[in-house]
């Protein structure tokens, strides 16, 4: 616990709030992995953790170390940039892989190779409204 007591109260409260917010958002996102029904719904869940979940924890870390070392510590931005660039790429690839596998198996709930008219909405793939 080096130097934690040196922080002013407002900074401590801000860091505490941001860290808790980030942890709660990440937890909700992972909870979505557990509760949503199909794979395509579950793809949405982790982005909660990787957008504002990671963002607020990294912001908390930036504020904390900037206050602690009394200079601007910004290298957490790098992680944030990495995450914002890489997560969409991985999720997109995963969704495409899942679609490819479902099509190869002839699953009914995924749209076929762009057979629908452009602009029309596909229906509920879980089979019930």
């Amino acid at each position, binding site marked *: 616990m080096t130097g934690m007591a040196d922080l002013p109260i407002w900074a401590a409260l801000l860091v505490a709030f941001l860290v808790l917010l980030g942890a709660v958002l990440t937890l909700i996102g992972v909870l979505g992995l557990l509760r949503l029904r199909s794979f395509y719904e579950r793809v949405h869940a982790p982005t*909660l953790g990787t957008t504002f979940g990671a963002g607020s924890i990294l912001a908390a870390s930036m504020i904390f170390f900037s206050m602690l070392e009394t200079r601007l510590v910004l290298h957490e931005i790098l992680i944030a940039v990495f995450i914002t660039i890489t997560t969409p790429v991985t999720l997109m690839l995963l*969704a495409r892989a899942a679609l490819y596998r479902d099509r190869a198996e002839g699953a009914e709930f995924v749209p076929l190779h762009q057979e629908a008219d452009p602009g029309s*909405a596909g229906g*509920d*793939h879980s089979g019930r409204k």
Partner: protein
Amino acid sequence: MMRSVLPYPLLALSLLAMWILLNGVSAGQLLLGCVVAVAASAVMAQLQSPKPRLRSWRAIVRLALVVPVDIFRSNVAVSRQILAGTGGRKVSGFVTIPLALRDRTGLAILACIITSTPGTAWVEYDSKRSTLLLHVLDLESEDWVKLIKTRYEQPLGEIFG
């Protein structure tokens, strides 16, 4: 002369910024970062990837302001939906959107925006028919085709043309 040393000024600048962020500010690191930036730009020039042209800085700023707000709103909506359990079930499904945007960089950025937003996920892009297959978590709350086209595609089209 400027062209041959720094073919990609924005790339070199961001590489230098990354180097400084990782290693701290000092004269030596600044020099080393410049060397890395110039070397990486030279490699990039060898690859001869088409250079994206930025046409409208105003649209970039507008997009940079709109996207975080949308991601935040979507975060709230998706958290509520996850926590609501079986009572708050929404209908999810696939949406096909015809896109007018052809530029590859613009499409890549559109893909990043759409996938980072928790409620929507980019599934497939058909380059022949230039249609995009999306999966959205809450199909009925909004007109997704119109939303994607006006909020994201139109400014991206302004930027990359």
